[in-house]
């Protein structure tokens, strides 16, 4: 059964602004989910609705099939790790973590045992007596996680919880969060605007923009098969250009025709074509599908970031592990590196089309 389900959830504010348009989500237990989108996309609003800090204007929120839309936050079996941790400044580390147990009147020796266990889970043994203000950002983050997890929530909500940390610490915490989640088997819902973070940690990502769900799926599905230009641009670097279909498995862009892996689109239809920079390689001009002139090369440690211009004037972004062999090169890519997107196609239409022509192939 789904642990959390949002059905036709809309959130409209009194001033007329609609933060969420008809959102439908279903989350399975024990998975790591990310809500990914730019600021103002509605991802935090969804989190607040699930946590119970806000009520939807329309639609319902279900927990294990039970309607919890109007249940106050204090009575929901889920806990939140806040953006700025929101630790209680007047309590020490131990009392911060013990807070949820104390308000539930758990016996003191029971509390002590549970808090100690949490402190060791987040690797803060011996920090109980410290004031939370003495802690570093990463340590505060861990206290916030322990404070939430000690209550054995069925779902843990994390609101941009890593964004206040520096890059290196963020990487460590990503790893730790993921391992805590695996260890406890709790459902995590992680709100972030950082696509790399979402791709690295999640089992499934929900991409949001302007209060609408754009796409959901595994990190690789979203990266490889974005449904529209927004998702393509938001997740990863991309080369995007407009073109049109010639027939199934053949598309034209930049005045050339190419074999591709997409079908189910009627011939002549205007489409957008996406090529990921790392799917491109530079070869001898004669062997390439397109000939380009190298504009700039940047060595970024693990790869080169190359900008190149083709004869039609389009600027290509290319990621390669080797330097460009010459000033003028051929650009090579496999047919399945071309991803064709229909204009205004929704996620469900996309899935339907995909299943149709994949059946044909079999």
């Amino acid at each position, binding site marked *: 059964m789904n642990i959390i389900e949002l059905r036709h959830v809309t959130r409209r504010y009194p001033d007329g602004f609609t933060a969420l348009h008809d959102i439908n989500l279903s989350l399975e237990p024990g998975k790591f989910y990310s809500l990914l989108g730019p600021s103002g996309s509605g991802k935090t609003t969804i989190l607040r609705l699930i946590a119970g800090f806000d009520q939807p204007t329309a639609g319902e929120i279900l927990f294990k099939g039970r309607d919890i839309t109007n249940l106050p936050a204090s009575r929901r079996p889920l806990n939140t790790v806040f953006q700025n941790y929101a*630790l209680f400044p007047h309590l020490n580390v131990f009392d911060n973590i013990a*807070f*949820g147990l104390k*308000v539930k009147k758990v016996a003191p020796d029971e509390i002590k045992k549970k808090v100690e266990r949490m402190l060791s889970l987040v690797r803060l043994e011996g920090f109980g007596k410290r*004031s939370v*203000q003495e802690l570093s950002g990463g340590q505060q983050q861990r206290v916030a996680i322990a404070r939430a997890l000690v209550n054995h929530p069925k779902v843990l909500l994390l609101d941009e919880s890593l964004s206040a940390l520096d890059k290196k610490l963020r990487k460590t915490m990503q790893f730790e969060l993921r391992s805590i989640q695996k260890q406890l088997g709790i459902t995590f819902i992680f709100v972030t605007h950082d696509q790399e973070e979402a791709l690295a940690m999640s089992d499934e990502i929900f991409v949001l923009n302007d209060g609408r769900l754009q796409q959901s799926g595994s990190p690789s599905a979203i990266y490889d098969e974005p449904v529209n230009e927004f998702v393509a641009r938001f997740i990863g670097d991309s080369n995007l250009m407009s073109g049109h279909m010639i027939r199934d498995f053949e598309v034209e862009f930049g005045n050339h025709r190419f074999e591709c892996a997409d079908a189910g689109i009627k011939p002549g239809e205007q489409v957008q074509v996406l090529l990921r920079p790392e799917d491109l390689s530079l070869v001898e001009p004669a062997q390439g599908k397109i000939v380009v002139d190298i504009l700039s090369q940047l060595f970024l440690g693990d790869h080169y970031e190359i900008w190149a211009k083709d004869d039609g004037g389009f600027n290509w972004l290319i990621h390669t592990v080797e330097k460009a062999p010459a000033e003028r090169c051929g650009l090579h890519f496999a047919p399945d590196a071309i991803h064709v997107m229909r204009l205004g196609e929704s996620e469900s239409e996309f899935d339907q089309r995909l299943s149709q022509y994949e059946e044909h192939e079999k």
Partner: protein
Amino acid sequence: MKNKSSFFLIPYLMWLLLFVAMPIILLTVNAFTDTQGQISLTNLRAFLANGACLKMMVNSFWYALLITGLTLLVSYPLALVIANCRHQRLWLLLVILPTWINLLLKTYAFIGLLGQHGLVNQALQFFGVAPRQLLFTKAAFVVVAAYIEIPFMVLPIYDSLHALDKQIVAAARDLGANAWQTFWRVIWPLTLPGVRAGVQAVFIPSLSLFIITRLIGGNKVITLGTAIEEYFLTTMNWHMGSMIGVILIVIMVLVLLATSGKEQNR
């Protein structure tokens, strides 16, 4: 740079010297000299030996405590409501507004309200209750004094409530605390600095109130404030009046020290 900044300090230092240091020095000198101008402890001895004086001191303390308690009881919920209102500035202005009116005028207004034929008694009569003596009672004194002090309690409490991170309150709810637990375990301890500032702003002036004790309390309540006025203006014993003033200052310093507490933000 250093010379320049100390130059700008001169007016303030002059002010402190003339209107803070000098009066305290004069008061202390007066308190520890007798009517012949000799240095002596006569006044202190007289004060401690006189049961009436000690009673006044206890009285002052007791009424200041009552007034502060009542003010806090009204002001905290009021500040809480305002801090969660949509038009906070307007409500705050309405709270502050009465402080723009002279204390004496406000006190006279209460005489009008509480008198035999005042508005309150008229209202009581309307409901069939016989007019009662409201003015010149101890209760009237405490209520009017509390009314006058309310803005000084509301403002610091409102400030600390306003500065309270909303996410911290949300976190308490999220962890399962009900409204009362959230208030008692999180909001109250975190707004304690505001309460302390309010208590100081109310309790200390309440020790030496004398206009309200006279006009509303009708001399039923004798505090150190009324005693000082008595010694200076009626019996003209400035030395004794000064001694009570010094004692009052000592009490104020003690109260200030007791309510400051240790700072939580290290």
